[in-house]
């Protein structure tokens, strides 16, 4: 009985998995590391046709071709970097969700860090300016005027 239940649950899971995957093929891997690399690679590449879908999530024909190529290159023993290069050579930097760090992208990666640094400098300068202003001692004249104001307040 328990066996039947387990089997039926497994069957249900299989079919629901198939329904969610839609037009996207299921690939079998003997090696879990290879499978993880395949998943990460196909999730990190943008479908050139559908603009904001990763190729592991898109049923465009070109995405199927790209997944197939990633799979083939993995089987051929290529490294992740080689596979990414292979794709970028054909489809351009556009397909990378994470642009690589190179001359062209220093501004892209550097700008957020630069802006945070500017913000920190501004805050530090403002805090210091404010502290200096409040620490400044009053002149005798100012002190007398302040006393007068306080006394007037009290007497009224």
């Amino acid at each position, binding site marked *: 009985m328990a066996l039947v239940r387990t089997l039926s649950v497994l069957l249900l899971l299989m079919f629901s998995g198939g329904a969610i995957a839609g037009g996207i093929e299921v690939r079998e891997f003997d090696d879990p590391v290879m499978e993880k690399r395949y998943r990460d690679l196909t999730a990190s590449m943008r479908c*050139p046709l559908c*603009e904001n879908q990763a190729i592991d999530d898109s049923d465009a024909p070109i995405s199927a*071709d790209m997944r197939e190529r990633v799979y083939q290159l993995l089987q051929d023993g290529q490294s992740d970097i080689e596979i990414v290069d292979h794709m970028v050579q*054909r489809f*351009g930097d556009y397909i990378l969700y994470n642009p690589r760090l190179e001359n062209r992208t220093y501004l892209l990666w550097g700008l957020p860090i630069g802006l945070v640094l500017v913000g920190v400098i501004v805050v530090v300068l403002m805090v210091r300016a404010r502290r200096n202003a409040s620490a400044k001692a009053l002149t005798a004249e100012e002190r007398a005027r302040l006393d007068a104001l306080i006394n007037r307040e009290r007497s009224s």
Partner: protein
Amino acid sequence: MTRRLLLLLLPVGFIGIALFLYQGLGRNPSDRDSALMAREFPAFEASTLRDANRQVDQTLLTGEVTLVNVWGEWCPACKQEMPQLLELADRGIRMVGINYRDTREKGLEFLSEFGDPFEINIFDPEGDLGFELGVYGAPETFLVDADGVIRYHHKGYVSPEDVREHILPEVEKWR
């Protein structure tokens, strides 16, 4: 003084970054250059659409400036751009087609119905050559110079304006 300068720098910087990002918003993300620009046409080996026994390779595209058009019978924009391609062929420009993800039967049917501006058609039923070219849809048009180097790329439908304003000047430039 430095403080005033700093306070001025903030809005200026903000406006600068905002303008930079704003002009990016208006750009069409599908309007991007081919990754193969200024690179050699990829090596390939394929049969031709008309003759399964005839093999061609990348040397087909050297010796003369050639327009390579990727098309398929299943692609509506390919039909619409045929008059423009026929006009380009009439002007004496060498045209080579890549019959992309199609069958021989349907490809030949297409040519007899819409005209054949191509000197030869490379048969690419699985899209293998298309993949090497970074093609992700049809039609796409590449300009290959006499040395077999890709010099210009047009994604999608070629309108009569595209012919006048982009393709003819590019052909002249590389001839």
